[in-house]
């Protein structure tokens, strides 16, 4: 297709800026200087994908190599997809506008389970066979990384290589091996066997899975001397880890339209529901100097007037005060606003509030997660009601009038008392506001409670628990609505259908590949978007494949059962998860990593919080 015709078609769709490319800092290279072309695919739309930090890191890291050209690819929105199909436009890289089927690598990032159908759709739009075994040519190789690779078994049939853990090193090692194998005329199979020996590389086709009569897994068997288990890869020294000095700056407005500066990886807290808190262990911090240097460089290269610190829990950064002092030094001078997401209630000091006051004042958001102390102890969210109220007082005294609270519904051991506790807590915050003599004058308070549905995830102490059924969720949501008495409280909750599918995939096995393929054929895509999600189609797909989804989502698992992800080693031992689950049942909390080591197993890397002086 010639460029003129292509551009004319672009003008017929919504937001052509999603597909036009040419943004600040996007990288265009001369093909003839390139050995390896890499299509970095985000299986959601441009606005979501461009907000993702991991893509920015790897895009820049790859493109810094002279022999690699990495381009960006996003899932085309259905209006443009229709245009593509009508005019036989194959899925292309934004930079070159050339079909990615001619690239060496097609890499997907797996950020959430509900993007799986989009991966199939994107492969189809590329003109490639969907199943890995049907792609006989050496290239393109379909690879995937990101948090969901800790159990990406549901898409194992479509992917050649999974990267476990952090990809900065294993990606490049695989690319180098690929160059060597291609030069020496090796086959795809030989290459995959070689690649499986690289730490952090999981080649699903090299493992056979057999099943018991009751549907559980009997055995996972490696072939061709593939490693067992396969251990995740991490960066051990974040001060030496690659971090981009440039981000591509989109023209169109995206979800997180600002510079992002990572400050540490991992989380010390060990909240038992939180997968990120376990799979990114151990905690590794960047130094204040590194953060300031990198943050400054990014602001200068992008022109962004806002920078956000990124981590799982900003206020757990050990040198937060000196960091903020140093950052504010240049952000105030350059009129850059600094935002601090992921603050915890228990170490939210007056000083910190004052620092944030230097920058833009918006609402405050706290993740309380559960309505009663008992349930907060079960999930190991070590914050007390007293701390919540105290923090709200501090915030109100500082001029804030809007508080947003995050909760979850469907947590293990949850009762209706715990649900009522959510409404009670919100009411107490409202009352606190009106009891304060120094409350902001002439203003009303607003407490927004946002309740999501808990989905048990692999590598968490709750991986053994059944997800509650959709009927139970509806009943609990209804009950909570009835418990709320004040008009100062607003209640937001999630559609429960998507949580169910997420729950199925999160702990699913390879047999789900057939279901995903079937659902794709029925037109399922953009499942995380309410306007496109169609549970009926998914249910048809499950039925036609003879698979009962509740088997994956709503079943209690024994400690002895072999899980679909048991051959993957994320360096948190199953023994530790079992111990934590038992503690949860007793509503006993576990101290955080800085207080006391809980012996999860993450110390095998010899670095990070495990070796800090306590």
């Amino acid at each position, binding site marked *: 297709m010639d460029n003129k015709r292509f*551009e004319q078609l672009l003008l017929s769709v919504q937001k*052509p*800026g999603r597909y036009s490319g040419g*943004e*600040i800092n*996007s990288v265009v290279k001369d093909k003839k200087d390139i050995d390896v072309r890499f299509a970095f695919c985000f299986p959601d739309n441009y606005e979501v994908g461009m907000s993702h930090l991991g893509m920015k890191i790897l895009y820049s890291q790859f493109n810094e190599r002279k022999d690699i050209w990495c381009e960006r690819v996003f899932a085309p929105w259905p209006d443009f997809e229709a245009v593509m199909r009508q005019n036989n436009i194959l899925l292309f890289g934004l930079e070159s506008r050339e079909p990615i089927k001619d690239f060496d690598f097609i890499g997907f990032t797996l950020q959430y389970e509900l993007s799986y159908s989009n991966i199939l759709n994107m492969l189809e739009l590329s003109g490639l066979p969907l199943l890995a075994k049907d792609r006989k040519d050496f290239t393109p190789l379909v690879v995937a990384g990101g948090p969901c690779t800790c159990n990406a078994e549901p898409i194992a049939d479509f992917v050649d290589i999974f990267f476990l853990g952090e990809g900065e090193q294993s990606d490049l090692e695989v690319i180098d091996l690929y160059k060597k194998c291609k030069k020496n005329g090796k086959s795809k199979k030989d290459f995959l066997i070689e690649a499986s020996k690289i730490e952090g590389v999981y080649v699903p086709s090299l493992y056979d899975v057999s099943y018991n009569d009751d549907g559980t897994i009997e055995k996972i068997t490696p072939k061709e001397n593939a490693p067992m288990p396969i251990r995740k890869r991490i960066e051990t020294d974040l001060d030496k880890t690659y971090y981009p000095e440039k981000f591509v*700056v989109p*023209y169109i*407005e995206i979800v997180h339209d600002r510079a992002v500066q990572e400050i540490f990886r991992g989380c010390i807290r060990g909240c038992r529901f939180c997968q990120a808190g376990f799979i990114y262990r151990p905690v590794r911090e960047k130094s204040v100097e590194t953060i300031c240097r990198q943050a400054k460089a990014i602001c200068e290269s992008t022109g962004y007037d806002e920078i956000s610190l990124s981590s799982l829990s900003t206020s757990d950064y050990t040198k937060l005060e000196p960091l903020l002092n140093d950052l504010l030094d240049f952000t105030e001078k350059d*009129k850059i606003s600094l935002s601090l997401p992921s603050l915890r209630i228990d170490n939210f000091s007056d000083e910190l509030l004052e620092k944030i006051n230097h920058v833009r004042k918006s609402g405050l958001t706290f993740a309380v997660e559960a309505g009663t102390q008992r349930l907060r102890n079960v999930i190991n969210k070590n914050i007390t009601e007293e701390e919540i109220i105290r923090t709200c007082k501090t915030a109100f005294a500082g001029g804030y009038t809007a508080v947003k609270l995050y909760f979850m519904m469907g947590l293990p051991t949850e009762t209706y008392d715990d649900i009522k506790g959510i409404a009670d807590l919100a009411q107490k915050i409202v009352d606190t506001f009106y009891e304060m003599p120094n409350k902001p004058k002439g203003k009303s308070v607003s407490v927004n409670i946002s309740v999501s549905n808990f989905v048990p995830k692999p590598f968490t102490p709750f991986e053994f628990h059944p997800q509650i059924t959709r009927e139970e969720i509806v009943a609990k949501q209804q009950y909570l609505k009835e418990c709320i008495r004040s008009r100062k409280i607003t209640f937001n909750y999630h559609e429960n259908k998507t949580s169910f599918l997420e729950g199925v995939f999160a702990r699913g096995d390879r047999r789900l590949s057939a279901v995903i393929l079937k659902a794709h054929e029925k037109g399922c895509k953009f499942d995380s978007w309410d306007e496109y999600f169609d549970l009926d189609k998914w249910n048809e797909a499950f039925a036609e494949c003879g698979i009962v989804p509740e088997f994956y989502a709503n079943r209690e698992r024994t400690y002895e059962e072999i899980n679909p992800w048991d051959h993957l080693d994320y360096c948190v031992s199953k023994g530790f998860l079992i111990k934590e689950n038992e503690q949860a049942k007793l509503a006993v909390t576990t101290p955080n990593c800085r207080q006391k080591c809980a012996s999860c197993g993450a110390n095998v890397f010899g670095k990070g919080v495990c070796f800090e002086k306590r």
Partner: protein
Amino acid sequence: MFSERVFVLKSVRLLFTKSARARFVSHLDINRFMTRIVRKAKLDIWYTEGFNPHPYITFALPLPLGFEGKYEIMDIRINDDNAPLGEIVDKLNSVCPPDIRFFDAVEPIKKVGEIGYATYDIVFDDNGNVAQKLKEFIGKDKIVTKKRTKKGDYKEIDIKEKIKAFDIGVVGNETKLSLVLPAGSDDNINPALLIDSFYNDFNDEYYCYTVTRTSILDKNMEKFI
């Protein structure tokens, strides 16, 4: 009433082109893009003094999405009265993507309200007879079409009487329709109206085309600067 600081703010009119991939950038997005570019270029630009200070940037005439622009105008204010204007252009170009290029910086002479017309080139991929069809079409006494008003409803207008001047020429495989149409706050005609109307009349064949706004004129048909 009295301020300790004395500001000598200098208004600077920047001229730039918008081509190739940049034509998919909407006016709203160009606005945001320019605030980033002036920051990136480290211009000593004047910031608004409200609660959220931002660089003060205004545009003379928004360019519709999909159009190329050869004579786009953006006004800024700089703090240093003595800053050489040529340097500003170089600084901006060094940080801009290739599809947006600055070519001049001047002190504004005319006010934005004096804008009266704009000139456009519409280039069609020709298969030999689009020129003839265009001549037929533009030769009509009236070209009546519907235009959306600011209120959101549609009113009928005759574009023919709005066309100040036009020219049709064929070069190689391309046919170029050049137009002068009213532009600015009083009366503004988007050439897309004319093209849509043209395709309504001749809906048998479709030719790819690109629209370029080549210049902005004042009410006396002189270059707006």
